[in-house]
């Protein structure tokens, strides 16, 4: 008997669904073990048939999202928060910083192409007051962060869910650095490179080169593709497990400490820069209480400028 999978897409970009198709040849092998009973992107199935596993992509932005999510919860045995938006809010969660009115004002009221003073009519007033991860609405059985999770991890996770059944086992939870081929090296005469996402040396850690890379504070669900090709990790799979489980550990404190040891740049300088640019460095997880409820994290304060209307 095949394990049945049902999926749903809330406020997200559909990238997690494309990642399913990106299993490439493995998708065909997977079909021997799994049956997709609902994938809104690929199938004409508009209802919620019962399924063993439910994959939910996206955060909850409006009342449709909430209703669909509840229907998914009722129809599946194991509900998986699929991708960073579902787990932490992800890029959709950046909306958590602004009121819905401010978002609409910005999208519909700006130069140079918008007709002045227009707003969507009342038929569309479905937005909720904020954007939230799905476990704020329903019970979630498993979390699969990643933006999107690399297909390698989707195959791995689905297999793991089937094998482990009701007995939870441990699952790999290392940081991005674990798959990065670069070497952390103590360097001198390095300055903090602001606004820069790439480095020239292909073998040395980005932190050592003065570029803020979130790899050491981010869960690896990506095969470390960004740092391996010279681009700083932007933290898109959300924080590493130590940050999730320990309230007093945070992205900026851990990162500034490590970078200070590698480069000698003052911890305070690094930390101040991360706080100043919190909207970018916390972009993927700021809508999650895991982050904003930390005693020292003041996301709204740090990004205050950005929510001025």
């Amino acid at each position: 008997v095949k394990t049945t999978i049902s999926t749903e897409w809330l406020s997200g970009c559909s990238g997690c669904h494309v990642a399913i198709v990106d299993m490439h040849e493995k998708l065909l092998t997977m079909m021997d073990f799994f049956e997709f009973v609902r994938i809104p992107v690929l199938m004409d199935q508009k209802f919620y048939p019962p399924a063993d596993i439910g994959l939910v992509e996206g955060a909850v932005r409006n009342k449709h999202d909430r209703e669909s999510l509840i229907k998914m919860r009722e129809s599946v045995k194991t509900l998986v928060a699929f991708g960073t938006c579902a787990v932490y809010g992800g890029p959709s969660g950046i909306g958590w910083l602004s009121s819905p009115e401010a978002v609409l004002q910005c999208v519909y009221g700006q130069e140079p192409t918008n007709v002045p003073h227009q707003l969507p009519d009342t038929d569309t007033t479905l937005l909720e007051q904020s954007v939230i991860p799905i476990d704020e609405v329903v019970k979630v059985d498993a979390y699969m962060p990643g933006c999107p999770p690399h297909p390698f991890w989707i195959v791995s996770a689905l297999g793991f869910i089937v094998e482990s059944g009701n007995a939870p086992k441990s699952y790999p939870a290392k940081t991005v650095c674990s798959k990065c081929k670069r070497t952390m090296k103590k360097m001198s005469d390095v300055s903090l490179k602001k606004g820069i996402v790439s480095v020239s040396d292909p073998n040395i850690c980005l932190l050592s080169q003065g570029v803020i890379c979130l790899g050491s504070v981010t869960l690896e669900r990506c095969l470390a593709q960004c740092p391996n090709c010279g681009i700083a990790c932007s933290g898109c799979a959300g924080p590493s497990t130590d940050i999730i489980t320990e309230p007093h550990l945070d992205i900026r404190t851990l990162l500034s400490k490590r970078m200070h040891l590698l480069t000698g740049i003052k911890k305070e300088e690094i930390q101040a820069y991360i706080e100043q640019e919190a909207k970018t460095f916390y972009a993927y997880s700021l809508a999650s209480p895991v982050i904003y409820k930390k005693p020292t994290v003041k996301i709204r304060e740090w990004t205050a400028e950005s929510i001025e209307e």
Partner: protein
Amino acid sequence: MAKKLMIEPVTRIEGHAKISFDIDDNDDPINGRLHVMEIRGFEKFVQKMELGKMPLITARICGVCPAAHHLASVIAIENGGSIFTSQKTKMLRELLYMGHILHSHALSCFVLLGPDLISGISASPKERNIFHILSTRPDLAKKALQLRSIGQKIVEIVGGRGIHPVMAIPGGMASQPTCDEMKRIFDWGVEAIEIVTELRPIMVTMLQKLNNLRSVTLINALPLALSNNDTVDFLQGKCCVIDDKKNIERSFSVLKYGDHLIERITPGSYMKSVHLRDGSAEKSFFVGPLARLMVNSSFSTPKANKLLQAFKKSLKSGPVLLDIIEARLIEMMYCSERIAEIASQDNEKEEPCTPFTPCEGRYVGIVEAPRGILIHDYIADKEGRVTRANLIVATQNNYDAINSALTALARHFKPANDENMFLNGIEFALRCFDPCLSCATHAAGRIPLVVELRKNSGIIQRIQRSSP
């Protein structure tokens, strides 16, 4: 009696939407309208973020066409900062992009819309999906999926990631494929040419079965596309519009887009429609594969160009809905040929570019996304932070044409007749445009399909698929 017809949710398109019609006195549907029910608001999200981070964060607008946003963004920064890019950089980006278009078009042609052609518009929902086609036509389906995989694997190698690529930075590429990888990409290019050569005629034959729809699905709007000296180009050129006599109606550089385009809200929808400014009046236009092929007179590669010339001859009257699919098939040939061409060139190693320091100014860029022109426009303050962003995406540009096509097919299939056929017909009209609603609202989407029939502003009927 007040009538309104609505379809929800629309499956197999990229986004969350419903559809409605008004019903006239003869009980015929009029005023078809796609309602987009989602909004994320990336224009707001990126405010106060550093300009240099835009190519990374804006790619996350869409999981289907992230490469388009990634490159539009980096090109905007380079345009605004007068940053030079080498021939090698241009070549790598084009390679990445051809892989991207191939993936997106193959997804549209074979996975999303393909089932309508292969199983037929009248087939039951159970038969109209890629999984069913894998069991009934495994030969066709596996090759189609392989074609998409080739495109996406190229994006992963050249762009650094398959979904949400990261490799393009202002002034260059963060790293380059190895010679081995280039060789593999070349082989994929050759394989893609073979697959398109085999599958395209099969799809065209299937399209011909729908010839009865041609007379009812005329696209009544002017094509707008990038044109590089009258040749199709996805990453550079001027915006060009042609009129129904094939004369140039207007041509402008992307910096001037604000003088030519205007965005309006539409009732009951988060998606804005875009029109051409025409003095105090406005004109409808459409974008995408068919617009690119109509505006330009040639492709730079031999096989695609030959197909294009034959296609142009067959375009006797005005463009119709089905021509979009054929245009997409021809573009897949172009992408495949370009992939093989680029990957066969010398793969010299290039020195990394100097990091770019952003400054106050305006940064505007354009690319041809798979579905048509995509514009990123940022204003940055003296600290290099974005203070305002304006994003115009392909599907918005097609809003008018989409609504006309919905009305045309609704009138053709009529709600009172076979309900399944009616719903499928309308969804088919939508899928021809391959609308990407993730992009369109810089949002996301569930894909509702409820058809609402309205009369005198009241809803008289909601048609949606009955429970399985």
